[in-house]
């Protein structure tokens, strides 16, 4: 069985290594500050005992007040999983650091989120629309898009 790691313990570990990066760690998921995302993802991938080398789903949800970007990480070595989240506020130009440098699995998924929800991923090598055509107005998966 893929065991979900204890988010509280993992949150403490991350907070010790990168102070101020963890916002909350409860309900089976870990919410990190988007500014520290690149550091946290590197830490999760390289720390012995965690070694989350495999990123599966990367998606985002529009909660109107904020956007939540969700990462599900799996460690093939230890057969454990972790759900990491980050929040981004503001609807005009939301931006989150890209994790493509750590997991290339994010390449298409970040482009898709940019296309459909309008969240920009800073540091992505090719931040363009993926599914819709260039010049399409708006981002359809936002809740206020009708």
């Amino acid at each position: 069985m893929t065991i979900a790691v204890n988010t509280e313990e993992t949150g403490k570990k991350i907070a010790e290594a990168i102070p101020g990066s963890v916002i909350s760690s409860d309900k089976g998921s870990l919410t990190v500050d988007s500014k520290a995302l690149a550091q946290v993802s590197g830490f999760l991938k390289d720390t012995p005992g965690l070694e989350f080398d495999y990123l599966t789903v990367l998606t985002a949800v529009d909660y109107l007040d904020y956007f939540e970007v969700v990462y599900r990480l799996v460690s093939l070595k230890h057969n454990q999983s972790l759900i990491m989240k980050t929040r981004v506020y503001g609807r005009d130009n939301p931006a989150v650091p890209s994790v493509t440098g750590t997991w290339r699995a994010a390449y298409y998924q970040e482009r898709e989120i940019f296309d459909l929800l309008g969240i920009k991923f800073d540091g992505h090598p090719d931040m363009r629309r993926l599914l819709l055509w260039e010049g399409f107005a708006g981002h359809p998966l936002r809740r206020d898009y009708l």
Partner: protein
Amino acid sequence: MPIKTEPFYLNVGPQHPSTHGVFRLRLELDGEVVTDVEPIIGYLHRGIEKLAESRTYTQVIPLTDRLDYLASMTDNVAYCMAVEKLAGIKVPERAEYIRVIFSELMRISSHMMAVGFYLNDCGAFFTPVLYMWREREKIIDLFDMVCGQRLLYNYMRVGGVSQDPPGEFWPALKKFLAEMPRYIGEYNQLIKQNEIFLARSKGVGVLPRDTAINIGASGPVLRASGVKWDIRKMDPYSIYDRFDFEVPTGEAGDCYDRYWVRILEMTQSLRIIEQAISQMPAGGPVCADVPQFFRPPPGETYGYIEAPKGNLGFYIVSDGSIAPYRLHIYPPTLINITALKDMMVGWKVADLIVIFGSMDVVLGEIDR
């Protein structure tokens, strides 16, 4: 004086027989050698995720059929399992077994199409596909018996399956199980030692183990690169922990391994089906009592299965209403083609078609 050269740009697709749908590759060529590859997708985008937001949980099931249309049964299963996880619905025992039997039949059928069309891309024009089609037809007939559909089944329901298979289904299934190993032997006889096939696929389009993990590849593509990772084994969902089966892996991660892993998986699927038939309870309900409109508690869930093409997942957010607040589909084939450029650069145009064919992509799932 050196001759002035410049790169040649070529579009393969969106309408091209070897792109398996409406997929476009923008190539940069130096003579016949590929120097750059850019996949361009979105020609089949129907906005399924957006459509789902204005439909009830049950009404989304037919939409999931249209994702991977060569394996719609497993798409149904993945979605229904995610909703059941969200709403806390328990599936009757008999329905679980029926789901396993149909998922594995679907896997065999999907792998047959993958291998058949892959050989087509290698240049064995349509003869292997017809051999594969002969047995796939029998699986399709089995599906036709239970739901009257041959491609988009819409057979699974939240809480179980729509109906018990009819009486004539079981003898037909047993006949298929008895015949199938002989047919797999026939495929091996035809393909496995074929020199042209070996020359076109051994060592071609290698996806190294570390790259495969880093790009998040899954399914036969990941296992061909030597990673023993099958969700049915590593994180058993439904009742997969009750069956005894192997997880075949490759070594080199080349086109040949991707073909061979699929052939080996067919045999394992047959084993699972045989065990499921013998363990299955004789009678009982096949669907839990789920109302037409139900309201899962607010929250979120991620349900995932080992679909024929890889790790297929549904991320659902509920706000307590009768429709999902947000539905995200995690498509295995889109993730598998992330490293397409690494695999194709340096090969000739003819090899590019072979490499792409070995990835087994379905555009309904990539574009959603």
